[in-house]
């Protein structure tokens, strides 16, 4: 069981959360070329290792969180709010 340390609620099992997606993707400008939009919508880094991603505490405080998790070991090394980044706080 993955456990996520919610900044508001404390450590909870991941069954309380809904997985969002890769949190490193940034929305292109509205007038950005189609290739950029294609990359944004369809292509993923999909790393084997550290992955920064969104989780929604759907059955808790309902906050969206940003989580750094290893996709091989499932170890979570950092949890923050969506506007934060692991480098900034750790």
């Amino acid at each position: 069981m993955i456990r996520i340390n919610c900044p508001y609620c404390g450590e909870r099992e991941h069954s309380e959360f809904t997985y969002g997606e890769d949190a490193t993707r940034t929305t292109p400008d509205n007038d950005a070329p189609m290739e950029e939009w294609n990359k944004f919508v369809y292509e993923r880094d999909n790393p084997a290792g550290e992955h920064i991603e969104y989780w929604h505490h759907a059955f808790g405080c309902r906050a969206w969180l940003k989580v750094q998790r290893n996709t091989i070991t499932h170890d979570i090394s950092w949890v923050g709010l969506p506007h934060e980044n692991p480098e900034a706080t750790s």
Partner: protein
Amino acid sequence: MGQYNALNIAWNALRGHKNWQRAWRDPEPKRNYDVIIIGGGGHGLATAYYLAKNHGITNVAILEKGWIGGGNVGRNTTIVRSNYLLDGNAPFYEHGMNLWRDMAQDLNYNVMFSPRGVMNIAHTKSQYDTFARRANTMRLNGIQAELLSREEVLEREPIIDGSADTRFPVWGGILQPDAGNARHDAVAWGYARAADQLGVDIIQNCEVTDFIKQGERIIGVKTSRGDIHAEKVGMAVAGSSSRLAEKLDLRLPIESHVLQAFVTEPYKPLINGVVTFGAGHFYVSQSDKGGVVFGGDIDGYNTYAQRGNLPVFEDVIAGGLTMMPCLSRLKLLRNWGGVMDMSMDGSPIIDVGPIDGLYLNTGWCYGGFKATPASGYCFAHTIANDEAHELNKAYTLDRFAKGYTIDEKGMGPYPKAH
């Protein structure tokens, strides 16, 4: 090595089965091949077999980082079907059904293909209506499909809870009568042996660590057993596609997710065909050995770990027990996970490029096993002719950019939802 036949078995039986030879060679890799297939799973083996058989290209190496049968080809729930809705998918999978029917004879290997029927259960009138639409579409595509009444469903599988007070009563069902199961290991071994007999080198414990490029063209691979050159390099490494593509700075429309599967101890015949629950995600069949084999949803977060988590475990079991309460008395023997290439539209990619000398076979989501023969057949054609076969021409990599996605479930670019 010769052909396997009844006489052969009798002769060996009389001699205590001491004279069987290995089913395929264990060659040292040569320095040059016409074609390298990265990945010795079902799809890679089938590709090499059809390259040799249909296209006369026998100077082929399959590079497998582990051992044959150790990846997803040995980790699935062995279901074979073609009950697809969309034009890009239906003819491809139905061609696969034809290959499944003749596979044991073709490969001279008993793959235990058993067309025992795949039945999906509807629990509401509206769900039944969508099944009617699917059945009609399947028939228009030349695929067998039957709509079943509630009574017919319960007659086919008596252990389904047909009581009035069950949480999700059975309304009816859809049946693909000629779909079923096959022995997954035998499919891997059969293709490996048949490809080897046609001259393909199967090289196990040989991990591809990088690509060798000349200008913008791929001319070979670096491996844990030395550099190997080839005119054409095909990737059939579902589960690791993004990791390998990263070495080429290639980002794919793929996320890796884990899918769990389960098997019980062997029991007497209990379930006649393949059955899927319509009010949750649960599919079940019984192996010829008696084990009840079942699975459900992917875990839902990016992962490369070949193990699942307990919430999905519980969800799968709950779905199964709702449909077939008697399963609660069975003892679970094993549970395992396999890593899936979840694509952005739920459909695979079999394509030339996008780099010269490279050919892609990826994005099988959790439907890769049934596609094994058709995938190999089409990928071999694509590699040999440098263009897609009629059957896989919709499975291009650039379909996402062009807006021609094949989204069977209509979920959009959310891989965990397919």
